[in-house]
């Protein structure tokens, strides 16, 4: 059975090109606008992956993907755009919950790999959805909520303290001013939500998140940054798999809401590890082959280095 994929772009040439490239292995659908795409999503039993442009007349890509998520949660969402303005990228993280953010011009083989991975995850997720008729909603979230542990990582001690004060009454809060400290804490405590600055001293937040994933794959990361670098945000989606991306300064409520959503997400992962996209992804990329677990003795830089290496060698975006 071929996977079904949907391309959305207001430029017909893009659709022609992608159709020709993908039609050999996939059941390719195309739409020239967001509204048309939503129509197809509603009509079609299962679209595994939707690949949409951001800038389109009528409905921008992020908005389309947000709607798609509501209509068909197991459809993996990829944004393919000619210009990544920050608003769009952040929107795609926080609102569209996109799987990948791909810039035009794209590379066919890398896009193929990304689409293939997305299709496989979608299929797996869809199977899980079929098993549990009402996924997510049946969770007794209250019970798990009380156990929530939040780790805040920021080189700025004042920020650390301020964030700690914000949550200390509701959750167990750990703080770390350095990456090493963070790893030490995570070795002995299972962390629900990680709130981290995009740059911790010299360590790139993206690498840090990738390394964290190896230590505790279920931890849900929230990234804080005062940089308006769209490229960083793209990396955070594609490599960091960040759950939320907040630009400083933000309102306290925004962070609170983000942490609450992250805890729900974490609880879902704990109860049904298969729902963790990240785990699925890792498993699909590496196969069921032995994944070297980080040993107790392993030094932090090694974890970071390996994470960096993994990212570099990945065939997908």
């Amino acid at each position, binding site marked *: 059975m071929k996977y079904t994929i949907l391309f959305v*772009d*207001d*430029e017909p*040439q*893009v659709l*022609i*090109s*992608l*159709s*020709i*490239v993908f*039609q*050999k292995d996939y059941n390719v659908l195309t739409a020239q606008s967001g509204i048309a795409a939503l129509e197809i999503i509603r009509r079609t039993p299962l679209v595994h992956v939707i690949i949409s*442009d951001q*800038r*389109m*007349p*009528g409905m*921008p890509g992020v908005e389309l993907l947000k709607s798609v998520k509501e209509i068909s949660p197991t459809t993996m969402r990829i944004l*393919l*755009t*000619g*210009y990544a*303005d920050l608003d769009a990228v952040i929107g795609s993280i926080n609102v569209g919950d996109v799987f990948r953010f791909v*810039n*035009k*011009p*794209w*590379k*066919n*083989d890398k896009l193929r790999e990304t689409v293939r991975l997305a299709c496989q995850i979608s299929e797996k997720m869809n199977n899980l959805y079929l098993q549990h008729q009402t996924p997510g909603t049946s969770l007794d979230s209250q019970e798990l909520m009380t156990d929530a542990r939040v780790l805040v990582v920021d080189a700025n001690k004042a920020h650390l303290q301020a964030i700690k004060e914000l949550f200390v009454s509701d959750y167990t809060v750990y703080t770390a001013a350095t990456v090493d400290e963070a790893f030490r804490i995570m070795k002995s405590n299972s962390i629900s939500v990680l709130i981290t600055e995009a740059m911790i001293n010299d360590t790139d937040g993206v690498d840090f998140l990738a390394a964290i994933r190896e230590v505790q794959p279920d931890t849900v990361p929230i990234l804080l940054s005062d940089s308006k670098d769209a490229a960083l945000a793209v990396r955070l989606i594609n490599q960091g798999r960040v759950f939320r991306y907040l630009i400083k300064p933000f309102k306290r409520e925004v962070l609170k809401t983000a942490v609450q959503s992250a805890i729900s997400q974490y609880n879902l992962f704990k109860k049904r590890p298969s729902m963790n996209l990240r785990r699925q992804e890792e498993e699909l990329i590496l196969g069921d082959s032995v994944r070297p677990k980080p040993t107790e003795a392993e030094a932090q830089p090694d974890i970071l280095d390996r994470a960096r290496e993994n990212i570099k060698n990945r065939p997908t975006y």
Partner: protein
Amino acid sequence: MSQNEKKNSSASKYREILISITLFIILDIGVLLMNFFISAQIKQDAVNVGLAGRQQMLSQKIVKSVFQIHFIQNYGQGEGRRIDVPRKDLETSATIFEQTLMGYYEGRMVLDQNLEPVYLSKAETKRAQDLVQRTLNVWGPLKQKLEPIIKSKKDTVDLAVSINTIIHVLRKDLTLLDLTSDLNFELQKTSANRAEILRLIQSGGIVLALGNFFVLLFHFFGKLRERDEEIERYSQGLEEMVTARTKELRQSQNQLIQLNENLEQMVENRTKQLKDSQAQLIQSEKMASLGQMVAGIAHEINTPLGYVRSNIEAIKETQSDISSVAKQFGLTQKKLINGQLDDIEDLLRKNHTMLKDLTKNPAYAQSELLLDGAIEGMDKIQDLVLNLKNFSRLDEADMKEVDLNTGIDTALKIAHNVLKYRVMVTKEYGNIPKIKCYPAQLNQVFLNLLVNSAQACEKPKVEGYKGHVLIRTFSDGEKVVIEISDNGIGISDEKLNKIFEPFYTTKPVGKGTGLGLSIVYQIIEKHNGQISVQSKLNEGTKFRIELPTVTSEQEGSATAGLFAEDEPEDSPFKTKAV
């Protein structure tokens, strides 16, 4: 000198005059009173002296009368003479004498020469009193001697008495005369003394009055002189002050001039700074709108670039298949030519399969479509780059005759990515003459207005709303009119007044510099044109630009554009106040 001190001094001045006048009046009144008093005393003195004289006379009259009586009685009785006449005289004289003497003794009313009552004052001086006393002492016994004569009612007087009396009178009368004379003299002396005193008082009063007058005069003159001196001093001080002030004034004038120069320098510097920062702001506005454009243009270029690359990659991927098919077919043909037909059947079957596989490959089957797409994408990119070049017109920084319709089209193409997602554009171009202008600047104006219109149509108000931008151009020969209207959100009246002001923006911080429309305004003003705006909230906005077909720069001096000034007139940094 304060007002109070002045008041005090003038009060003291007046007090002095008042004191002087009071003194003068008191003195005068004193002298006058003394005069009156002493005059009255002198008058009394005159009475006293007069009566003293009478006393002398009376004393002699008494003697005379006594003698007469004696003579008549003794020698003249026969001749018909009677003694009662002299006796009467004697009585009268004695009575008056005694009365007068008592007057001197104790002060009383007496009868004067004319038998009028007059007041006789008591003897004043010790000596006079002594004389009066002594007179009284003499008079007493004398009167006793005279009594019998006076009291005798008979025509005759007893001779013995008479002689006794005469002897006594003769003996005493001289003393009496001397005494009265002395009294007279004494009284005269007293009177003279008094007159002397009066004179002294009068002359003293005059002297004192004069003294007072002179003192006053002196004082007055002194004051006057003081005043003069003060005035002198004051005027001198005034002069000095005026001199000083003039000097000060001159100094401050100099300072002012200096300050003015500094100020001018400062203003010049500030103006320069302002111009620089304005230029920077304009530059940053350009960068901001450029940034916005870049986002759109990057997308515009990356999209064709995306499918061009994808298409070429897809075709490239078929290349190896095509090569192997060609190789296979070449091998088959070679075998056929060489007559090696042993396995030709297998070979042909394999060829068929390979060819079938190749033709089944969509990238091969539709390679023409892919290549067409690639070429189309290239054209698009080329077109876009050309448009960018046309839009910026960097090679045409000077004035040029251009067709504005073309300029609007260029701006439309640049803004295409912004416009196409939001609005439908309708063009109603009229037949307009070419005008001499700075094309790059006017293109910027058109782009700015078009993007504004598109942004105004961004939020659909109602279901089924479709953003619409209408561009109209027309000309009446004298001017070219460009109207850009939209059916967007519109602008409220209070905002409408401010939209051409620099830094006025309704966009959130960081999203707009608020310079876009002010720059538009400046550019149109530089072209001697006019820009106006009409808008209604929730209905839309219409911008209208009028540009003269003949610009004033065309009529400028013949050397215009030959020599570069410090700040060329056409420099984008040479801005006029809005």
